[in-house]
């Protein structure tokens, strides 16, 4: 009896990882092409960008907020960074008279743009008290518009190879983008679990009044939380742009929804205070493997969307029941 309930507890606690493993096992049987190094690396490359996005968004969700602007930040970062590293031989450059800049300048400019949008979100939420959904909905539309204005909706092509290598190079078989994703995940894990800021994020999401009376500077922390989300989004923007070898003003459209879905499937609770980095990574991998596996099995991409939607809702239903049972 007691043992059974321990098994139950174990399953509850690690459900998301069990689902992930089961998916891998099942797909390995169904498709011989699935469990190959190249295929798995492909999955990781595809999901790295959105994975970084999901980690950033999770900070806002744990604090009982949301960030809808991350997809647009990807786009904005993409066109800003790309416009600074176009090959001088290309005649239709965004900035025709731009001197040859080191690529790091483009990277930093992109990161700065994302962080600024994030901080603006945070400041709006903290100091005007408008709901995060609305604040980030507004900045999502604004950032998308800015990206289009800058490029007139044309792509920003012909990027210099020193920049493209970020997205296309690798150490052995492991691409840089995957390494960056892993680094972001480790750093986020450390921040959430071992720093004061991390504890503040959980406390604010768990009970903002208690956080306030405990002397936590809620407003400053909110600015920081949304800055983290914007910063992560701009990292993703740079990686995806470098891989695509072109800046595109619509690059990140709908990415925010994938990121929110991954965080949610990974057990990040929209009621605040709950969420872990391993869970989020499992969430993004489940989505990625699902995409990949269904593709390998030749299932229609439209049906894939239906399945994805069902999984998202199912994950949250499971989570709610799990939390209700604990009470």
């Amino acid at each position, binding site marked *: 009896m007691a043992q059974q309930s321990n098994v139950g507890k174990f399953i509850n606690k690690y459900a998301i990882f069990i689902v992930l493993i089961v998916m891998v096992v099942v797909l390995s049987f169904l498709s011989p092409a699935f469990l190959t190094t190249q295929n798995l690396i492909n999955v990781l490359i595809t999901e790295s960008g959105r994975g970084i996005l999901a980690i950033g968004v999770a900070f806002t969700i744990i604090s009982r907020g949301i960030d809808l602007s991350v997809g647009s930040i990807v786009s904005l970062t993409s066109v800003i960074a790309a416009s600074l590293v176009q090959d001088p031989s290309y005649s239709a450059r965004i900035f025709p008279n731009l001197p040859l800049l080191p690529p790091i300048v483009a990277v930093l400019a992109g990161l700065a743009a994302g962080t600024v949008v994030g901080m603006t979100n945070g400041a709006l939420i903290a100091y005007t008290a408008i709901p995060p959904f609305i604040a980030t909905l507004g900045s999502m539309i604004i950032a998308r518009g800015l990206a289009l204005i800058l490029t007139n909706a044309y792509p920003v092509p012909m990027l210099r190879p020193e920049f493209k290598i970020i997205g296309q190079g690798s150490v052995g078989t492991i691409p840089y983008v995957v390494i960056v994703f892993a680094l972001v995940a480790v750093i986020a894990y450390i921040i959430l679990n071992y720093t004061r800021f991390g504890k503040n994020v*959980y406390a604010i999401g768990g009970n903002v009044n208690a956080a306030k009376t405990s002397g936590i500077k809620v407003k400053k922390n909110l600015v920081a939380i949304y800055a983290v989300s914007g910063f992560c989004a701009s990292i993703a923007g740079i990686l995806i742009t470098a891989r695509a070898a072109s800046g595109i003003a619509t690059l990140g459209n709908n990415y925010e929804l994938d990121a929110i879905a991954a965080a949610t499937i990974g057990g990040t609770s929209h009621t605040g205070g709950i969420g872990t980095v391993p869970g989020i990574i499992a969430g993004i991998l489940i989505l990625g493997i699902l995409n990949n596996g269904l593709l390998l099995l030749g299932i229609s991409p439209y049906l894939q969307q239906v399945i994805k939607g069902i999984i998202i809702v199912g994950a949250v239903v499971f989570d709610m029941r799990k939390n209700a049972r604990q009470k």
Partner: protein
Amino acid sequence: MEEYILEMKNIVRTFPGVRALNGVSFQTKRGSVHALMGENGAGKSTLMKCLVGINPPDSGEIWLKREKITIPNPHEALKLGIAMIYQELNPVVERSVMENIWLGREPMLRGLGVLVDHKAMYEQTRQLLNELEIDIDPKIKVKELSVAKMQMIEIAKAISYNADVVIMDEPTSSLTPNEVEHLFSMIRKLKARNVAVIYITHKMEEIFTIADEVTVLRDGNNITTNPIAEINIDSLITAMVGRRLTEMFPKMESKIGDVKLAVHNIEVPGLLHDISFDLRKGEILGVAGLVGAGRTELMETLFGLRRKSAGEILIDGKKIDIRVPSDAIRAGIGFLTEDRRLNGIIPVLSVKVNTIVANLRNYLKYGFFLNLRKIQSDCEEYKNRLKIRTPSLDTLIQNLSGGNQQKVLVARWLLTNPDILILDEPTRGIDVGAKAEIHTIITKLACEGKSIIMVSSEMPEILGMSDRILVMSRGQITAILDRKDADQETIMRYAAAKANNNKVA
């Protein structure tokens, strides 16, 4: 022998790991108020939840009007005439009184049957409220009402279902004395209508005013059932805790030192006016007053949660500037807030995180990382010192009893090592045993030289614990009394006084 309207026989209810009700039996008669008492976790609420179908019993029988019934859900209970007024009311605050009363069974326009007949709804509501002598406009939004009036509406709703059994779960926990009086007259009206009232409470004095019979539960078992005339407070407490509480208020005499905190002429527009007092080292200053007198607001102002428009705060004779809570914490003030669930605990986080959350600054390594080992050992220490009962420090705080949650919050503030500790209703809603433990902790802290401000609505607590008593009324201080000059009547007189800048009336 008188007929029982309701009989519950050998009710058993288990939750994973706990046998919450261990064969409890309970009977009640028409036109009688039956008080149900016991410590938190004794099974009072669980028993009532069995009765209204929130947690149907595992075994046992329920008989209503000599018929055996099963109650699968609260809706069925209502149809059978069993209504419960919950401790935390949950009205649809943005909608009108009448819509709340008729929610889910709105009168419909004849003929069509799909459109609500608002006229009939209004008339029926008015009639109902008139009958009960409740003076509330049926069209007013519920959010405009005080908690007391919302309760009246709930009672009216119960009557509108023709309930024969009305259960009230700690209905007075957030009422002023006047409102309690009004509630009691309402309960007497229910009695006169031959309704059986089941009344759950922690407050001793209430049951001697209103109850006809008292049943005490302990650890999911029946302990006693007696007519009110045959019991007294001592025997009740003994029955509830299973041992004698030798002293309800274990106050120790502490050495009272110099002035620690001085407050001069604090103003908060519309809330506080001309507040001045001081607090000495080793002193417990009780703060009494009615709900709405501004006691909590004053504490929030001292702690930087509210902005003052004038006045100053001195600690050790030095003027300090408190704008946000972290300023107050740095100045050595701790604040145990009034509403544990709303402002205190972070339910989804562990006991450990809840303990250290106000003190993260002191656990920093290299300015950024937390010293987890020190956190663990400090939490262990306070867990033992305050006798916090929890399976582990990683247990979510929401799984602890109210008393233990409160001890975690006390630990939170002790960890910040404050010189001044503000306690706002430190024992509200926690059981007798845990209450005495918290009182012991408070008096020990005073003996260690800490200065304590204790806001409380419970007279015995104020009188039993304080060295001096500050009484507030309508945002002003109406009296500061010495322990030896204070009694219940004096305090009540000042608490009800209209302060005419005339402090000693």
